[in-house]
């Protein structure tokens, strides 16, 4: 019996879960206007149920009150009876596949922004501003406490009425309940402040009200933090006291524990631990709480692998494992574990594209799985095509690998050309940056899948026109990527060898020098990655960017990780500067910088200038094949965006006719998700 603990059922109150794997509450950013789950929302969860998970807890931070705004991040709104029907549809969909479904309910207190929907005045125990969300708040008054407790009770009624299996209340990441708990935010002197007993009062009243509404048999959980990691915040010992007390109230059926507070940019980055952090970095906090808890304990944070999950359970640290991002990357995770197909799991790499999008107010998408949350249009399981075709894919970066994978899954004969000896394209370089090694996991899965499926892979083969045509293809997909766009400004002197590219450094082609200026015109992960690569090899690095801050386009849980390394290694961040030119003076290079706002010029004397300016498409093959192809290389965007087959696919091909398409950076620079989505949405209909 493999994974005896992972697949051992557990009963929470009267709710029996078929296994110990949970998709814990997270913000999806999928709800329809008004905060109601629609088809996209339901299908996103239903896919996980089909995939075999035990329990999903949806609706991360779903507010119970109208003064806790939800619309600006499309959260589920539990403050209205309109929620009952959509949740009932969700419950029915999940139960059809044997999974259980709960929802998280909360009041965010100060952890929000007032500028939206009703323009509320946020409430918090002592009116202290929340830094991350600029959450200006007022001091909560007793009548508001009473109203909000009543709101929780109403939300509980709606949840139970909808047929959901339970309700989780959040007191983690500084929501209203733990704002009362935390000495960082509660300076009250009334019955809700001071002693621990007083600080816990609000939370207990909330659970009493809920229990009064739902009765003894309904599953009610509490999500809490295991340590806020703030000098003035809740410590692990305090939280153990709280956990023990809460578990002894008899009001709660399980505790879900996460590590780290989240009211500063730096602590927030811990909450969904990115790839830079070790696996399961905070499980010890959950284990500590389990040591005092009277109810089962759940823990999620970087548990992405079945063996890791089994080990955590078998060592008795927790009772249930959250594998939430793991499910975003592969909703069929559990079935693959169950069926011994672990090698086929598209494993989360912790790139945090999902959560970083959320912090930009965008819907959660997976960097590597373009079907996630697009279940209505994009398949997780690719069906076989009726007619077999010959498909030639050129380029084995993420777009080309995905195109080849999907085409092969469709049952076609697939030849994949790659000029390098290894697959992965630009991700191979991305994974060279310090603490970014796990990016290679994205390639690993595509690499293994294309091999498992039997794609005819011609590595180390730079395909030319003749080679492609010799395959007598029905369809040619170009995924030839691009080259660094470092010649955009001739005065940078790349052609003269004055400046080099990030690729030159990461690939090892150019040795790092002592004093280096990294000019990052796009502020993505690439620029900081190369700067970090240089700094960690002993270079003195200054990062210059015209953007408002270094790494500006990297997201709320990623830039803090970069900044930890930036300051720890003494790199110099210089935002708001353009680089006009580079020239040689003696044995030094002089970089001329221009301030975006004052236009004042400055100079830097350095040993090396490294440029990160994005990608120019590599489109030579496209232009040489375009006129020969039946569709003239045209991708019909109307059908593409509507997730429908390209019209030219239904026309018969005669003789040596073929269709030509492009995906990914060889059209124009996108990111990894963009490349993979390009390939999936096009090739799924081949």
């Amino acid at each position, binding site marked *: 019996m493999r994974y005896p603990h992972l*697949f051992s059922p557990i009963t929470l109150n009267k709710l029996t879960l078929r296994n110990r794997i949970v998709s814990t509450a997270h913000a999806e950013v999928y709800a329809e206007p008004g905060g109601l789950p629609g088809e996209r929302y339901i299908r996103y969860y239903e896919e996980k149920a089909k995939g075999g998970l035990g329990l999903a807890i949806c609706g991360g931070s779903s507010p119970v009150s109208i003064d806790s705004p939800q619309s600006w991040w499309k959260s589920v709104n539990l403050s209205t009876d309109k929620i009952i029907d959509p949740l009932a549809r969700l419950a029915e969909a999940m139960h059809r596949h044997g999974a259980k479904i709960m929802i998280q309910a909360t009041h965010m207190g100060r952890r929000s922004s007032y500028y939206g929907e009703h323009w509320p005045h946020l409430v918090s125990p002592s009116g202290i501003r929340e830094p991350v969300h600029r959450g200006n708040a007022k001091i909560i008054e007793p009548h508001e406490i009473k109203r909000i407790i009543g709101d929780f009770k109403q939300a509980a009624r709606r949840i139970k009425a909808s047929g959901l299996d339970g309700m989780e209340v959040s007191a983690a990441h500084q929501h209203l309940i733990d704002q009362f708990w935390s000495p960082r935010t509660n300076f009250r002197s009334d019955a809700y402040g001071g002693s621990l007993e007083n600080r816990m009062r609000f939370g207990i009243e909330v659970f009493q009200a809920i229990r009064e509404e739902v009765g003894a048999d309904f599953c009610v959980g509490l999500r809490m933090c295991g340590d806020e990691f703030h000098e003035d915040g809740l410590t692990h010992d305090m939280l153990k006291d709280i956990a023990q007390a809460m578990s002894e109230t008899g009001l709660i059926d399980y505790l879900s524990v996460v590590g780290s507070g989240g009211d500063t940019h730096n602590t927030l980055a811990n909450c969904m631990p990115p790839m830079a952090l070790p696996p399961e970095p905070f499980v010890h906090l959950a284990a500590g709480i389990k040591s005092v808890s009277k109810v089962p304990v759940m823990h999620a944070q970087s548990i992405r692998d079945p063996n890791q999950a089994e080990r955590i359970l078998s060592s008795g640290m927790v009772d249930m494992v959250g594998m939430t991002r793991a499910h975003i990357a592969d909703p069929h995770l559990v079935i693959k574990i169950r069926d011994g197909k672990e090698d086929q799991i598209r494993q989360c790499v912790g790139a945090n594209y999902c959560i970083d999008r959320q912090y930009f107010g965008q819907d959660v998408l997976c960097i590597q799985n373009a079907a996630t949350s697009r279940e209505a249009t994009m398949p997780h399981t690719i069906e076989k095509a009726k007619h077999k075709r010959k498909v030639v894919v050129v380029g084995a970066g993420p777009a080309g690998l995905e195109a080849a994978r999907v085409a092969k899954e469709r049952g076609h004969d697939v030849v994949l050309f790659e000029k390098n000896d290894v697959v992965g394209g630009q991700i191979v370089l991305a994974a060279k940056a310090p603490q970014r090694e796990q990016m290679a996991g994205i390639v690993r899965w595509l690499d293994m899948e294309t091999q498992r499926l039997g794609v005819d892979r011609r590595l180390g083969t730079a395909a030319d026109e003749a080679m492609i045509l010799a395959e007598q293809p029905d369809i040619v997909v170009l995924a030839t990527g691009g080259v660094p766009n470092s010649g955009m400004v001739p005065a940078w002197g790349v052609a003269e060898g004055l400046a080099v590219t990030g690729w030159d450094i990461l690939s090892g082609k150019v040795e790092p020098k002592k004093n280096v200026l990294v000019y990052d015109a796009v502020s993505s992960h690439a620029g900081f990655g190369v700067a970090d690569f240089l700094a960690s090899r002993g270079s003195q690095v200054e990062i210059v960017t015209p953007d408002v801050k270094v790494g500006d386009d990297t997201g709320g849980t990623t830039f803090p990780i970069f900044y930890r390394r930036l300051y720890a290694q003494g790199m110099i961040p210089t935002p708001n500067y353009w680089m006009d030119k580079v020239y040689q003076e003696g044995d030094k290079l002089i970089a001329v910088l221009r301030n975006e706002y004052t236009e004042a010029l400055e100079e830097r004397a350095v040993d090396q200038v490294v440029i990160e300016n994005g990608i120019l498409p590599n489109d030579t093959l496209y232009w040489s094949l375009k006129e020969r192809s039946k569709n003239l290389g045209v991708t019909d965007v109307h059908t593409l965006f509507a997730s429908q087959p390209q019209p030219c696919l239904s026309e018969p091909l005669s003789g040596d006719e073929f269709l030509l398409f492009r995906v990914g950076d060889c059209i124009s620079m996108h990111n990894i998700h963009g490349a993979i989505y390009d390939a999936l949405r096009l090739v799924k209909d081949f």
Partner: protein
Amino acid sequence: MTFTLAYALTGLFWLGAALLSLGLVRRAALWRQGRAAPVALGRLITIPKRYFVDLHHVVARDPFIAKAHVAVAGGAVAVLALAALNYGLMLYLPALDALMLLAALLMLAGAMLVRARRKAPPARLSKGAWNRLPKSLLLFSIGGALAALLALSGDAFGTAAQGLALLALAGLALGGAELALGIGLGGPMKHAVAGLLHLAFHPRQDRFSGDKRSTDLKPLDLAAKDYGVEKPSDFAWNRLLSFDACVQCGKCEAACPAYAAGQPLNPKKLIQDMVTGMAAGSGPAYAGNPHPGQAGKVRQGDPHQPIVGGLLDPETLWSCTTCRACVEECPMLIEHVDTVVSLRRHVTLTRGEVPGKGREALANLRDTDTVGGYPLAARYHWAIDLNVPVLLPGEHTDWLLMAGEGAFDMRYQRALRALVKVLKAAGLKVAVLGEVEPDCGDLARRLGDEATFQQLAGKMMDTLGRYRFNRIVTPDPHLFHCLKNEYPVLGGRYDVEHHSQVLADLLERGAVPLKADAAPLPATTYHDPCYLGRYNGETDAPRRVFKGIGIKVVEMERSGRKGRCCGWGGGASFTDIPGERRIPDMRMDDIRATGAEQVAVACPNCTAMLEGVVGPRPEVVELAELVAARLAV
């Protein structure tokens, strides 16, 4: 002259009869070293039917040798019978001589066929004395024909007659000696006498009656301190007799999966080892293939010395998968598996020397009621989200689903889930026992631990006795076999069906809602589980299931009752005796040879063994999974 030959023939006949009788007495003394057996002498009258029906049924599978044997044996028996009548009783009737001539010519024809086979003998045949046999048969048949011809011809041969008569007598004497001395000296023709007696006194009398196959292991009387067989003399006398029936044709050898895998077991040699033990000494020269890896090893046998460690290496015993391919093939109806299990029982019960993981499995069974040492509560974890009712005492269900040990295997859980899905879709009222379901004891019994088997069986029967159900369905052929065939003698009688039988019936009744338009199904072959096919003769139901869901099966050469074992049976996957190849790998080669993209299985253990074959290979799919995939959602 004629009369001289006639008298000589009379003398020769009675001399031969006397020698044969003496030989039989001598051989019978060896058999009688064995324990008593409850068979009556009156069984002798069953010989003709058992010979012409049961034995011939097996022999007829090889038409060439069947024809040869009919001619040789039929001719020889006729010659002997006519000789007894005409010369033994001194009737000297020419008409009988004429018949004898015909019989001898028939035998001659047969002997020619036998000789032809021996010219390029298959590897499985023993050589040595057995290579001499066609010559003896030729001599005897020519001698007989010549003698009859001389007797009929009067003086036609003139002066040549005397010389010819001497030749005829010499032929008959030399050829006849093979038979007359064979039984006493243990030569090849021993098989004729011992074989016929074996048919009468066969240790499994139920093999010849009723519609059920006799494949159940018989319980040991543990209270009477019967711990199986240690020494040759511990076998029942008719078991010793059965070993003497062996003709060393090697059909068992050719069918044995362990032998093919290069594990140290050749079932033919095993039977000859028993003969050696019974007859003491190093036995008559054995000129067949050895136990693999043991060529040239000379063993001393003694009827009163332990077999294992002396005559046999323990590894030989533990290589057997109890798949019954040998028994199925044996034209002399010898029961190899009984022999192996009897020997295993003594080793296990008195010394506990079970190799590999066998000992651990037995300890697990004793301590946890499961082979793998699992908590019983975990047996139905896979069903938690399928809402299968757990039967409570006092409640009643039509069908009781018993998952067996396969329920702890995550791969097999997929099959179980599929089965439940199908049974529910067909509207069957199914329940399970949940955490009270114990182990049926199959593995313990095959590993020789009869005590643990009887304990487990007792527990199982007690448990089942507390619940009310009409019928049992199980996808596990081992569990099926135990419940159906091995429990009745212990007092447990259940109406039990293998899931293939239930599925076949449901499909034929149209009770399973199937998808209307079927996607093209991949080429499929089917691997018969030994405990379903050979043990229970059920090769039809799974094929009816395939038919019911529109799958055309590409059959393997070794399929149905001739199916090749996956390597699990008899605890062989636990004792894990090294060979040159793995049995499941060979089976996968059989599967590959059909060109099928997937192989259907109908047993948790076959599933595990075939899934364990590494490298690119056809998919392994359980029968229920195939049906579930065709369910109309």
